[in-house]
């Protein structure tokens, strides 16, 4: 990337310090804004911060929860990062996650679960990834071959997926409780790795997925084509890149990651399919991808940041008496401030200017 070469001369050092100053300023503004809001709601910002920290890493169950949510967020982050690199704005990771979740519950509650030991889980994971990839390929196909706007199409499919989950919990696999399906049988659950933290196989699975996508993007020919398409469609086309196919595949690759996120959520965290169980984890993936600068290598730390805010946010209600949505508000304000500061960009041309 360009910063490496320009670092060679001292004259350019200032140009790299300025964005960092901007980023720090943006973060301070964002935290100040939310602190002011928390204060005006009658809670002490200090209590709120303590609740955030305690709630995310303060005890082993909450630490485990943070690890598991980090896994899901890393996967939905990839679901945005890969298509974004091709300049395909996939904003429907939430729907793709649900597609994977529905496939996982369908396999887990079917006779497949009675097969010998590793098979149910292998099939469950594969089904989730395929479902996510197909759900994501739809807006990609609509864009590549029918010229429909992929942003709106992927959003609309998210609303459809949310309603499908609602239908699945109420009518296909009802449990008697309003909000969730029958629980998965034990042999269809991702095995627990540590009982004190409830960390399951989902976390290493997510790590492997991040590694695979990092390899594809940095070393694979598909990754090269995705990056080339993102840098300039016309130049890539001249060079013989099959643009339409690259668009669809970038969507499908991202969708497979989101689908795996759905599997982790259903078979590795909840043990059942819950209506609105993702509650924004897919949309949060956009923030994860942006802060990681679309680079798979930075996805995990970025996901960890947002997962702690998210998990800690749920402690706000109990400890500071303010809505758990404050955590999400902080995330939104923080990322918007970084966008306004020019720290986060998805367009390469703009970054060079």
């Amino acid at each position, binding site marked *: 990337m360009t910063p490496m070469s320009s670092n060679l001369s001292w004259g350019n050092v200032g140009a790299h310090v300025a964005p960092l100053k901007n980023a720090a300023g943006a973060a301070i503004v964002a935290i100040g804004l939310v602190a002011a809001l928390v204060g005006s709601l009658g809670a002490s910002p200090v209590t709120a911060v303590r609740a955030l920290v305690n709630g995310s890493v303060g005890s082993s169950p909450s630490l485990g929860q943070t690890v598991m949510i980090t896994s899901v967020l890393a996967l939905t982050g990839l679901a945005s990062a890969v298509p974004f690199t091709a300049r395909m704005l996939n904003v429907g990771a939430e729907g793709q996650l649900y597609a994977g979740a529905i496939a996982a519950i369908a396999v887990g509650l079917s006779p497949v679960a009675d097969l010998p030991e590793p098979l149910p889980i292998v099939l469950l994971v594969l089904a989730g990834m395929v479902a996510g990839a197909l759900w994501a390929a739809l807006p990609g196909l609509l864009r590549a071959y029918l010229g429909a706007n992929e942003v709106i*199409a992927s959003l609309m499919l998210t609303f459809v997926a949310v309603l499908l989950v609602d239908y699945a919990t109420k009518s296909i696999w009802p449990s008697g409780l309003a909000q969730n399906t029958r629980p998965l049988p034990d042999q269809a659950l991702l095995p627990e790795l540590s009982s004190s933290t409830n960390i399951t196989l989902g976390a290493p699975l997510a790590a492997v997925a991040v590694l695979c996508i990092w390899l594809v993007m940095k070393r694979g020919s598909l990754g090269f084509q995705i990056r080339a398409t993102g840098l300039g469609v016309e130049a890539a086309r001249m060079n013989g890149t099959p643009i339409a196919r690259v668009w669809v595949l970038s969507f499908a690759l991202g969708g497979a990651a989101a689908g795996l996120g759905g599997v982790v959520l259903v078979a590795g965290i909840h043990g059942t399919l819950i209506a609105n169980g993702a509650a924004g984890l897919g949309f949060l993936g956009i923030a994860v991808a942006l802060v990681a600068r679309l680079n798979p290598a930075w996805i995990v730390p970025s996901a960890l940041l947002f997962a702690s805010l998210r998990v800690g946010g749920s402690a706000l209600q109990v400890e500071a008496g303010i809505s758990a*949505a404050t955590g999400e508000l902080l995330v939104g304000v923080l990322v918007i401030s970084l966008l306004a500061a020019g720290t986060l960009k998805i367009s390469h041309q703009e970054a060079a200017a």
Partner: protein
Amino acid sequence: MSVSQLVFATGIGLMVPLLWAALGETITELSGTINVGVEGVMVLAAFATGYVYQHDGGAVAALLAAIAVGIACGAFLSFLYVRRRADQIVSGILFTAAASALALVLAQQDTTPTTIKSIPRLSVPLLSDIPWIGDVAFNQNALAYAALAAVPCTHYLMQHTWFGLHARAAGERPLVDEVAGVSVRGIRYFALTLGCTLVAVGGGTLVLSTAGTFESGIVNGRGFIALAVVVLARWTPHKAILGALLFGLSQALQFQARGIWGLSALPSDVLLMIPFVLAIFALVAGRHSRYPTAVGEPYRPRAEVGPNSQ
């Protein structure tokens, strides 16, 4: 009323918020900015409207609250999209997420008991006596008539005024504006703020024509559907009526399905999916419609770029 009359009467009611939002977004997009944060503006406006209306502010004050929210959102998004040149689609989505969270935080804070009330329906003299159509179209609330009146106003503003001409230039060839001595950014600030104000009126309508209270999920994707309506209507205000009506009717089906043969057997979730699936078809149907050339591209004035670039 017969079932078909009920579907159309409900559909026209549901059309109104979409129409307000689509008109606002049409103005915004024609001037070269795409605001994916429509949903977020509607959520905040709906909250403000519900808050004022429930605290005995009256319908007019409630609507003014929505307008104030629209102007504030427009000013903020202008800063973000136009001045700071942030990626419009990504920041629009994140704005929606933050706005929804903010509305939720504020709504949970307000624990006063709510009363269900909506603004009165007004029947138009003479016209409401027309046999079938009278009950359906001419017995709506004031905001519905105002939305229809806003259509020719938007058309006139965009096609026959100084502002409209330069706004469309800012959306197609921003340099033309600059050469003519008109600030592209200034035009876009104004268009985005006006657009957000109309969108906010749509969010207010949603509250005032239903239960008169804000609840989370009240907007439920309508802001995003409005984006599809704009594409389907090809940035033309009068076609936006048809587009919004189509989606209003598709949303009305879920309320009247019991009386319609063939629909009564479908699960409610499938009925709720209809508008979203329809929006995807609308995008495909509108695939030959072209977004304004410069839409989504932040403009840098020549003075700022310098003489030697490009």
